[in-house]
């Protein structure tokens, strides 16, 4: 469970990115966060795994107060939370399998870390993760030779191998074509249902958000202006979230 209580986030330059956020997300939910660019979607997501610090308020992730963690405690928190990025963030020059195996690195003994030697068990788990994403046949292919959709699947497999309870996805489909985007959204749906992982997605494509997510959180200038089931989102609500700029936002991206 993730619980934001009166969370405020102020950047060093004085810009207030999140204002008085109150939000509770239960284990196993599929939440899409929508809003204009710069509304604070990305900041909201990155507070959950402490990629950003919150300024005031309280943020509990699985009953742990995130803002109080230090050093290795932060890294332990992150071990349990997967993160997916718009630009996939894979190491281009190595194979899919090796990219997935990286998710085991923090738990390995030092000598294995230095030499980059993985155990057979780890290889099996990594291959299983790739299999789950239906790209087992690409295990030994270098990532830079895969298509965007395949790369995002490798990134997803890397996250699955981490066995997180929560997956944060920051614009995971923004650099994919519409058909691949749908496939990746379906992948998230499957992971969410089969493995009961919480999935929180920042997304620009409102239609995809409404089609796949069960819950929508609308953010406008750092404030939550809508929080409810995807089925109840109306045009008026979207207009409110996007400040009347929905068309502009969609064509602009």
């Amino acid at each position, binding site marked *: 469970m993730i619980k934001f209580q009166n969370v405020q986030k102020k950047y060093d330059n004085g810009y207030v990115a999140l204002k008085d956020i109150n939000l509770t997300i239960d284990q196993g939910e599929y939440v899409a966060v929508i809003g204009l660019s710069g509304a604070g979607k990305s900041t909201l997501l990155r507070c959950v795994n402490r990629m950003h610090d919150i300024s005031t308020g309280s943020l509990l992730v699985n009953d742990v107060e995130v803002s109080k963690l230090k050093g290795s405690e932060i890294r332990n928190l992150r071990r349990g939370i997967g993160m997916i990025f718009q630009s996939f963030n894979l190491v281009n020059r190595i194979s899919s399998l090796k990219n997935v195996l990286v998710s085991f690195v923090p738990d390995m003994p030092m000598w294995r870390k230095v030499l980059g*030697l993985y155990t057979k068990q780890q290889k099996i788990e990594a291959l299983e993760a790739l299999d789950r994403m239906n790209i087992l046949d690409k*295990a030994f292919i270098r990532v830079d030779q895969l298509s965007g959709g395949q790369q995002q699947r490798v990134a997803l497999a890397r996250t699955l191998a981490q066995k997180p309870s929560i997956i944060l996805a920051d614009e995971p489909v923004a650099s994919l074509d519409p058909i691949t985007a749908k496939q990746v959204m379906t992948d998230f749906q499957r992971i969410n249902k089969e493995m009961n992982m919480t999935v929180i997605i920042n997304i620009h494509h409102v239609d995809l958000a409404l089609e796949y997510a069960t819950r929508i959180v609308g953010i406008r200038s750092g404030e939550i202006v809508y929080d409810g089931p995807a089925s109840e989102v109306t045009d008026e609500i979207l207009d409110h979230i996007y400040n009347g700029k929905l068309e502009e936002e969609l064509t602009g991206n």
Partner: protein
Amino acid sequence: MNMLKAKSITLPNGKIVPFKRSKAPWIILALLICFYYSVQITGFDLQILTKRIGQFWVIIGDMIPPNWNYLNKLWQPLFDTIKMSLLGSLLGSVFALPLAYFASSNIGKNQFVVTATKFILSLLRTLPTLVAALIATFIFGIGTMAGTVAIFLFTIAYVGKLLYEQIENADLKAFEAMQSMGHSTFSAFRYAIMPQIMPNYLSNSIFCFEGNVRYAAILGYVGAGGIGLLLNESLGWRNYANVGMILLLLAVAVFIIENASEYLRKKLL
């Protein structure tokens, strides 16, 4: 080290994934063997190095401060060096164009001419410039002419190779269109391919000139004129303050030429 032994892994769901054996250990082993034998052959000895490396710093120390009085005598040879490289690069680049034309497999119709031209270009490229310069001094006598010839030959080979690779990668659609309009092969080349390769050709020529200045500086060592002659002389007399002055002047000249060439090439591309 199950990486070496495991050939395939069976997943719990029954799928079998074949593993390629990693070649890395073999490559490392081969490199180590090469390293060992190279040390044997060259007589590489860390002890001598650590004991005697002081000599190197002594020489460097003798170069500083450089002998500024020597500067007056250096301008003429420096300009000779630059002239040698300029003329050699200019003529070499011009002559590279027809050679590249004949060496391009997509333009040339005669396979024999294409192969022969390519072969000549690669032979020229492998001939060390210094050796070419030395041979040239036997034919043209001691002096800048020998250096110019050596640079000319190298430039043809270098620019020519890059140029025919470019021509072979050029877009042939316009070329075919022009041929269909009744242009000859040559005139279609002139109007369809040349505009595509021109910026790169000029850029490569300028880059080659830049490198040639460095080469020209040492050609004097074999008597092929320029500042290298004085460098050789000063080194022979162990007059390191003079050597320092030459190297400093050379560094400044190369620096200026490098920056000018980089500026020109940026404008071209």
